[in-house]
């Protein structure tokens, strides 16, 4: 059991959990993730330590409320309560380099995963142009990015009915604009696979090297199950041990998009039942 030292709603649907997990805090590096289990009958889901204190032994997680598990976390987990499990750190640390100009893109909550990586790259002597594309109510970490980034751009657009399609349009337009203005040596992106793919199709036209953090569905996160398999360069890779970062030019995005949608009916059903149960409970 891992104590929740602090729980804080950052915006609607985005919650920060400061969790006591000395074994993870001691070792985690930018680019790595953890797999958590919050409830006895809960799922194992991957999330990313955003900040950590090795001595004090805690990590910060920022989680978007998306389906049943993350909704339950938002509703049921309390400060002083516990996560049942937090395994890791998992995956490969982000690569090291210096002297480059990097366009680091975070789409919606994907931004939080870019934070430790972009910070590290900055410290290693790179120029960081960071971009956050998000519906306006979900803007986060603005000051934190401004504090180290050479230029932090927030493309926040109104949250209307078409917000998901708008996300693609905004991501593509802002990326184009920043490539023209800043001429980066490399692009890095974390966010929904569909948006990553659309942005890649733009970056490709400029021939700029690009890395993507992939988010397939995971179960164990240790290479044991193969749920997270992705095709990269024509070969089957397990994102949890071979990734999560890959060369965008080699990734079969279309396959991954389909794989990620595989359980959507069951996920929706579980979410609806859950929402009904908590509404019933509140009466």
């Amino acid at each position, binding site marked *: 059991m891992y104590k929740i030292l602090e729980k804080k709603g950052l915006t609607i649907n985005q919650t920060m959990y400061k969790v006591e997990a000395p*074994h*993870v805090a001691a*070792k985690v590096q930018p680019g*790595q993730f953890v797999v958590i*289990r919050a*409830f006895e*009958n*809960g*799922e*194992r889901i991957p999330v990313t330590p955003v900040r950590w204190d090795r001595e004090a032994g805690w990590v910060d997680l920022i989680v978007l409320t998306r389906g*049943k*598990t993350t909704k*339950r976390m938002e509703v049921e987990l309390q400060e002083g309560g516990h996560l*049942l*499990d*937090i*395994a*890791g*750190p*998992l995956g490969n640390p982000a690569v090291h380099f210096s002297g480059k100009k990097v366009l680091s893109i975070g789409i919606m909550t994907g931004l939080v995963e870019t934070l430790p990586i972009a910070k590290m790259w900055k410290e290693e002597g790179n120029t960081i142009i960071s971009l956050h594309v998000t519906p306006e109510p979900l803007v986060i970490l603005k000051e934190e990015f401004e504090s180290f980034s050479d230029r932090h751009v927030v493309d926040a657009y109104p949250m209307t009915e078409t917000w998901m399609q708008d996300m693609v349009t905004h991501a593509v337009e802002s990326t184009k604009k920043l490539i023209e203005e800043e001429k980066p040596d490399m692009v890095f992106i974390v966010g929904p696979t569909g948006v990553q793919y659309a942005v890649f199709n733009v970056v490709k036209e400029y021939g700029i090297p690009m890395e993507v953090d992939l988010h397939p569905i995971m*179960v*164990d996160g*240790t*290479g*044991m*199950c*193969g*749920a997270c*398999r*992705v*095709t990269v360069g024509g070969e*089957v890779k*397990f994102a949890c*041990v071979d990734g999560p970062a890959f060369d965008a030019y080699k990734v079969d995005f279309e*396959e991954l998009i*389909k*794989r990620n*949608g*595989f*359980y959507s009916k*069951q*996920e929706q*059903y*579980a979410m609806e*039942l859950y929402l009904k149960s908590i509404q019933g409970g509140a009466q």
Partner: protein
Amino acid sequence: MGIDPKKLKRIPTPEQAPEERIHNFLEVNYGYDLESAQQEAFRCVKCPEEYAPCIKGCPVHIKIPLFIKQVEEGNIKEALRIIWMNNTLPAITGRVCPQEDQCEKDCVMGKIGDKINIGKLERFVADYARKTGIEEELLEEMIQSIEKKDQKVAIIGSGPAGLTAASELAKRGYQVTVFEALHEVGGVLVYGIPEFRLPNELVEHEVEKLKRLGVEFKLNYVVGRTVTIPELMEEYDAVFIASGAGTPRLLNIPGVNLGGVYTANEFLTRVNLMKAYKFPEYDTPVHVGKKVVIIGAGNTAMDAARTAKRLGADVYITYRRGEEDISAREEEVHHAREEGINFKLLLNPVEFIGDENGRVVKVKFEKMETLEERDSRGKRKIRGTGEYVELEADTVVIAIGKTAGKIIFQTTPGLEVDKRGTIVVDENLMTSIPGVFAGGDAIRGEATVILAMGDGRKAALAIHEYLQNKQ
């Protein structure tokens, strides 16, 4: 020798009826009660120890006639004491060993009648002792006799190899810590083998026993990431790698990443460890649909097939070889057939065919034929016929084995592995790094529970030896 004709037939063990059990995950076989166990024990001719073929056939050489004699006389405590000398997890091996290839293979009773049901007798001793408190008494005796030592041993992985080594080392007084990547202890015993064959509570019970022997468990520790072997070596006097053969093998054919194409590990983990069969009460989903095609015919394939059956599907086990080369335990094949699983032999998958949403809908196979010649593993060679067939499938489960995981190897400089990534050890199970031992599937590729346990025990003795000399 005038033998009582009643002695020729096996005393049966009751089972859940097939039409009932395909709707639940409860254990299929109920095992013996005291009376029927005594009757079965009475059938054994108690071959002399130095001759008994059953002892030779058991990989850990349990003194089978001796324990069976105690069962016959109703001394279950003595029977358990005898078994424990060689095997600390009889409730498990009694259920999952391929007895027909091991202890029961050359049982002399087989020459005139049915072989003795050694597996079920072993299981009976363990179950009876657990339920009646006999085991508790023996455990107390054991705990009292432990002389604590200061030396510390780290064990990586909590499958049968790790659990056995932990028990043997704890009994010898060492301070043992088991590091496990997952959130539950037991390895394949909990995430792979289904409840209807090996209830998880049995594994939990073994873990509780180990805790009482002083073994510490650290869950959610992925060795190589959370802590590395070189780091463990600073704190511990010896390390035992029992991390299994974690990585599932895939087929290198088109469509392998379609939705609905699972590895057996993923399918079984979702159902067994994450309890997807209780979705939506449990949050982890699994997709089954109406038709399920399993690829492979080992224990893993049978488990996946029977699990899919219990989730309501029509199930086809497909195998590229013929009947005689099916490698699963006899009992599982028999149970699978009783449960209405269809066997389609001599079919080699060549393509998974999907719909426009990337979901599998069909599997295309080449029909195979067997040749007289045998390969290095003694299996009949096969050859394609150039004829193809298709089977409809809402779900496919690939159960064609596993290879070693790479996290440990990649993060342990100086650890020698072979071409397939399996850890190389000497005759004492020591790896290329002094003080680091390995056993179980990590050194064998996918093998069996009892071989993993045998390694755990052997490694524990080797570690004991090594640490005594080190002082």
